[in-house]
């Protein structure tokens, strides 16, 4: 069986504005990324701001064509027109819902665009509202009447209405309070269980990723640093960047932090990425080869399923 999603050597570049007679510089948001995910699997894309994780997500959702390479979706079942196998939910549930539309109009919009008639749309709205744990009478209210967590439920309902196989979730929890986060996270887990949906889950929060992801890809300046099963990433991170990210996550019960363990510096501009390994400017292990030769994504020693792009990997 073919994988549900195949990302083949995808690069996404943006031309920046230049002068009157000269072309602007090129921003390499995503650089030679290949990934695949199977049906029912959740792949988490992790990285700092500016790593290209959202750009990649937009490309998977079909909102932005790749500059190079291809993205292929292989649905397991037929999807009639307008019922796109891929849907997306965004970080900010306040700006993602049109304040002048009723919940019913918002949630049913993908079906309306596909030409589904009103009575069928209404039936389906009731169904998906129930799936996300919202009362049926929510359909006739407006987004501002709901809290942040409820709005994120509505956004999930809209994503579910077209019966997708893959949902791109772009930091869907980061705008929510901690006690609300856990509810949405549980909901996403339940929906995956019931409907067999896969998530392309973009996040910077390792706690959340640990909870939801089957596989994890770590992105830095548009390139994959490491990709492996979630269990392996957390138990035996291979790449120094993955290790630094994991070490930076605050944890309960360690006592006051030991000063000086933080990764130095900031992510460089993608307009002018460092030569060789893009991480070498911040890497505690960097040697001469790291600034000249781009490391390939290869298995970590003794772990064939754990790929790591580093000259000095563990």
């Amino acid at each position, binding site marked *: 069986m073919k994988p549900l999603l195949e990302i083949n050597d995808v690069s996404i570049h943006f031309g920046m504005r230049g002068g009157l007679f000269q072309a602007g510089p090129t921003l390499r948001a995503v650089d030679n990324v290949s990934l695949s995910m199977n049906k029912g699997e959740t792949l988490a894309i992790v990285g700092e701001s500016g790593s290209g994780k959202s750009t990649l997500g937009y490309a998977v959702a079909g909102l932005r064509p790749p500059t190079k390479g291809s993205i292929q979706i292989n649905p397991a079942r037929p999807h009639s027109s307008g019922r796109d196998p891929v849907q997306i939910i965004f970080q900010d549930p306040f700006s993602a819902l049109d304040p002048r539309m009723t919940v019913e109009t918002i949630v049913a919009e993908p079906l309306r665009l596909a030409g589904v008639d009103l009575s069928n749309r209404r039936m389906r709205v009731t169904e998906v509202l129930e799936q996300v744990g919202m009362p049926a009478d929510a359909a006739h209210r407006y987004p501002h009447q709901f809290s942040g967590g409820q709005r994120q439920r509505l956004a999930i309902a809209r994503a579910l209405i077209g019966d997708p196989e893959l949902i791109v979730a772009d930091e869907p929890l980061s705008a929510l309070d901690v006690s609300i986060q856990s*509810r949405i996270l549980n909901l996403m887990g339940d929906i995956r269980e019931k409907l067999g949906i896969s998530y392309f889950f973009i996040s910077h929060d390792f706690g959340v990723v640990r909870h939801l992801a089957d596989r994890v890809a770590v992105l830095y300046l548009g390139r994959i640093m490491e990709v492996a099963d979630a269990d392996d990433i*957390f138990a035996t991170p291979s790449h120094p960047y993955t290790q630094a990210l994991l070490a*930076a996550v*605050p944890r309960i*019960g360690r006592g*006051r932090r030991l000063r000086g363990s*933080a990764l130095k510096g900031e992510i460089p501009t993608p307009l002018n990425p460092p030569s060789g390994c893009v991480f070498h400017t911040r890497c505690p292990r960097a040697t001469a080869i790291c600034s000249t030769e781009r490391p390939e994504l290869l298995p970590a020693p003794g772990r064939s399923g754990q790929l790591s792009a580093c000259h000095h990997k563990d």
Partner: protein
Amino acid sequence: MELQMAGRDTAPLPAAAATVGSLLEVRDLGVSFATKEGRAQVVTGLNYSIGEGETLGIVGESGCGKTMTSLSLMGLVPPGGRVTGEIRFGGRNLVDQSARDWRSLRGRDIAMIFQEPMTAMNPVMTVGRQIAEVLTVHEGLSTASAFDRAVELLEAVGIPSPNQRARDYPHQLSGGMRQRAMIAMALACKPKLLVADEPTTALDVTIQAQILDLILELQEDTGMSVQFITHNLAVVSELAHRILVMYAGRGVENAPAEKIFDNPLHPYTRGLIATLPDPDRKVDQLFVIPGSLRIQPQRGCRFASRCSLASEICAATEPPMLEVETDHFVACHKVTP
């Protein structure tokens, strides 16, 4: 890196040897606002103190009153707000002091940093001039020497090429650098107390770790006290000596940090800890605190409607804050000494 302690005789304290004497004592603090439906009490009967060189973490969700508590320490509660009770700092009660006294205290003895530096900084003034302004106002420095001092401060908070950055506008700096610049501004007059309101919430984890390091380092150098406000218990566990958990405008638990994490006693604190997804452990279902902060009973314990232990007494009377174990204070009918 070093911040000079000129003009102040407080010797730098080792951070662990806190609570020598209380720098700040908050007694029965209340903050309320007039609304169409009557007075809304956003903070009620709050008590806590912060020792010299100590870091207090105040933890709670949106709407628990933690930000209003901080603003009341700065005399910055928005117009229409009424502050009652006592805020004792350096031997006097700040609550009733004049606007003029607030101006001389704010930024000099107590300074504050915010979640989003962009809203706290002037977008049309260079970073260096903004920091220099604090020094000309409070310390009477000349414009030129204040600017030189501003560059030193930028260097002290770890900003590379501080000379150039001092001439940049806030939007030209990255989020992490802006947060550093705001910390430099807050520390310009070596305050005794730094109030930090979610200063790392908008930052990436690696930059968050750097800012937490910076706050620890500056505290070791200057011996200042810190009140650190956050909704994230994990973040505060990296910094705080002591933790105060707030719910719906009240303190519900107050204890040294290790007691809060090793032996949380209030059902809300327990819920907050359990609800955080743990990066070191995968579970099938995360713990969920039922209900919502928005629905609050008129009488009794504010948390009662969401609490699995609640009984009749919880709905009837407000639980007092009691010392349940040595130096471990809890406001809950179901947790008794």
